């Protein structure tokens, strides 16, 4: 490990990897430090991503994909179902990734582009001089080293400690952490090309349960609930066990996965002098779906571009790096985050009666595009009666 890089990246997830690759391709020196001994493990993810979203960044390698999704199903609290299918029957709408393979391959690509990578290298503090982020203190192989950089990119995920050490409050409000538990289950009867979502306050208060297939008879089966609904005897794991007991009583659990997903608004500012914050660390996971892979990759790549440009111009001040913050906020992703935040705030107010009313009067929907907004507008279109529900009318406003 050198004692100085143009860019130092804290965390080797998809966001950090895309940032590193982008900086390396700009001909600058870049180093990823990852506290875990391996990239991609332990997984803390349901692994779903939209088909169009993944293709935006990379040529998709088949070995990243556990299963291809062709449809989705939403199960309402009373058990009735809505089937969502794409306009083009049989076409793919999404993937369930194998994050262990995917994450490692992204870091490999960054390394091949010229990035240095250190695993089991733990950042224990920020180096700050005159209020400017100058680098990080790194514990590696029993030694502690101070590594400086023109720009540090905080890509340290949901924990988001590095930005905190730089004086930025990254605390997620209790009501806006989705506390999640998931099993990889096998020997279960599922449609291997369909994702299933369950909503309802008894199943998963202020969240949802999911079945994301990982192949024939195998799936990520998980649940997320709001932190404020969690407590002794009714934690995410308790809800999951109840769900699995009724849904797949004979299934076998071959892995237990835990995680927290923020559903709050993004950090008020995602840059400081010498610092850019990306992905889950910046709180840019989607508040309604909980999806974070695309947003991490998007902000990671953008952070890499802006950092490279600023370093070449020899100005890595907050004002110069602000270009990153402004660009993602004004992007399609940034606008979707703001809209989906409002959508989430509405969703959590719906009791089971209202959820049933909204989800019941349609059996199937043909989707031109597979995303939350298309679903909402289709629900409104198919549901003239449910428009009487004031919440749905409020949703319409978000779309118009």
């Amino acid at each position, binding site marked *: 490990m050198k004692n100085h890089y143009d860019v130092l990246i804290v965390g080797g997830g998809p966001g950090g990897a895309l940032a590193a690759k982008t900086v390396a391709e700009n001909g600058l020196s870049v180093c990823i430090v990852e506290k*875990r001994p391996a990239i991609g493990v*332990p997984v803390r993810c349901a692994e779903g991503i939209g088909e169009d979203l993944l293709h935006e960044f990379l040529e998709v390698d088949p070995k990243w994909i556990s299963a291809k999704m062709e449809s989705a199903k939403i199960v309402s609290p009373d058990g009735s179902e809505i089937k969502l299918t794409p306009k083009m029957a049989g076409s793919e709408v999404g993937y369930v990734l194998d994050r262990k393979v995917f994450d490692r391959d992204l870091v490999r690509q960054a390394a091949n582009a010229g990035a240095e990578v250190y695993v089991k290298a733990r950042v224990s503090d920020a180096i700050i001089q005159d209020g400017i982020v100058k680098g990080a203190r790194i514990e590696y192989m029993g030694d502690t080293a101070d590594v400086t950089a023109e720009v540090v990119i905080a890509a340290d995920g949901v924990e988001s*400690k590095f930005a*905190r050490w730089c004086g930025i409050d990254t*605390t997620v409000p*209790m009501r806006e*952490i989705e506390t999640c538990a998931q099993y990889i289950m096998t020997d279960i009867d599922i449609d291997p090309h369909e994702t299933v979502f369950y909503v309802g306050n008894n199943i998963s208060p202020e969240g949802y349960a999911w079945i994301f297939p990982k192949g024939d008879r195998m799936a990520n089966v998980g649940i997320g609930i709001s932190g*404020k609904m969690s407590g002794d005897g009714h934690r995410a794991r308790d809800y999951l066990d109840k769900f699995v007991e009724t849904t797949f009583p004979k299934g076998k659990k071959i892995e237990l996965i835990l995680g927290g997903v923020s559903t709050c608004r993004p950090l008020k500012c995602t840059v400081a002098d010498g610092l850019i914050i990306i992905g889950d660390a910046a709180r840019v996971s989607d508040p309604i779906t909980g999806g974070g892979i695309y947003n991490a990759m998007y902000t990671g790549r953008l952070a890499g571009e802006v950092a490279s440009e600023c370093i070449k111009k020899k100005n890595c001040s907050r004002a110069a790096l602000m270009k990153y913050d402004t660009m993602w906020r004004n992007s399609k992703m940034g606008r979707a985050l703001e809209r989906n935040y409002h959508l989430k705030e509405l969703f959590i107010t719906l009791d089971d009666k209202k959820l049933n009313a909204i989800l019941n009067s349609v059996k199937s929907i043909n989707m031109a595009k597979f995303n939350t907004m298309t679903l909402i507008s289709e629900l409104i279109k198919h549901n003239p009666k449910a428009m009487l529900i004031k919440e749905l009318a409020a949703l319409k406003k978000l779309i118009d």
Partner: protein
Amino acid sequence: MIKIRREVCGYCGACVSVCPNGALELIDAFLTVDNDNCTNCGICAKICPLGALEIEDEKPL
């Protein structure tokens, strides 16, 4: 103070994200608490998906 039940913890880091005082840290695969910064607010214990955190009363001197 906060007691971490290491045998229960799934080292997911959810608790770290909600701690208002930055008193928790996930170091590789083990969770640590800085009891000097912990205010016993109990948020971490409430949201833990597994119930790995417990608030312990201060022992009388």
